[in-house]
């Protein structure tokens, strides 16, 4: 019996990392943004301040990279604190 081989090209995005990006906002206080990073990501105060300063000086900071579902969860949490946060595919 002839054997039929079906080739399937599976394109999965499961392994594609996603970035959680926080954008600069002149209204949110620096101390508030630091507190939010500590709460949402469990960052140390030093790491939270480092990301906050990156947002402040460079306009944005990638605060987390990983699986899509988790990234969506973090973006939602950041929006609950009224931070400007987006999800984007990691390069």
């Amino acid at each position, binding site marked *: 019996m002839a054997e039929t081989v079906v080739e399937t090209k599976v394109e999965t995005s499961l392994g594609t990392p996603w970035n959680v990006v926080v954008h600069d906002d*002149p*209204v*949110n*206080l620096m*101390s*508030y943004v630091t*507190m939010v990073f500590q709460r949402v990501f469990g960052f140390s105060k030093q790491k939270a301040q480092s990301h906050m300063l990156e947002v402040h000086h460079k306009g944005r900071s990638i605060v987390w990279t990983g699986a899509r579902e988790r990234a*969506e969860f973090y*973006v*939602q949490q950041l*929006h*609950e*604190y*009224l931070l*400007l*946060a*987006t*999800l*984007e595919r990691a390069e």
Partner: protein
Amino acid sequence: MLIRRLKENSIELVDIEPIEAELLRQVPGVCESGGDPRSEARLFSSPADSSESQFLNDWAEYVRPELRHLFLAARNTVKEDLEKLSDFPGRLGRLIVPRVHSDAWLNALNQARLILATKFNFSDRELSMHEAPKWFSRRDLVLQQINFYAEIQERIMDAVEDE
């Protein structure tokens, strides 16, 4: 006005001047965007660029109503706390905020500041200015209001962090 931790479970606002009491009472009202598109756009900012259309649709359908509910709940908590603000004529006011309400206060104060800054179109430079102007237009007064709410946010964070 002095803001400090009171025992374990509360934050106390004491020596509240009448003008400060008035500004505090305005917080829930200021948080009402009144459907202003720019304020709405800031409170409910986009979580991704337009290439993520399915995600944006899901967000609008499921997440945005949750956020709206959360923001409203924070405003209502602040409103209820403010009903207990004691400020009799000729005396300075006092308000006790339960520790568990501190997040609601931070959130509502943030909403108020974001909406005021958006409605009055303040620039980064203006928002970082701390000099009092020589004369006060309505816009200058709103900037003072934004800065006043920022100070309260700072003091509440300090009081919570001290624990």
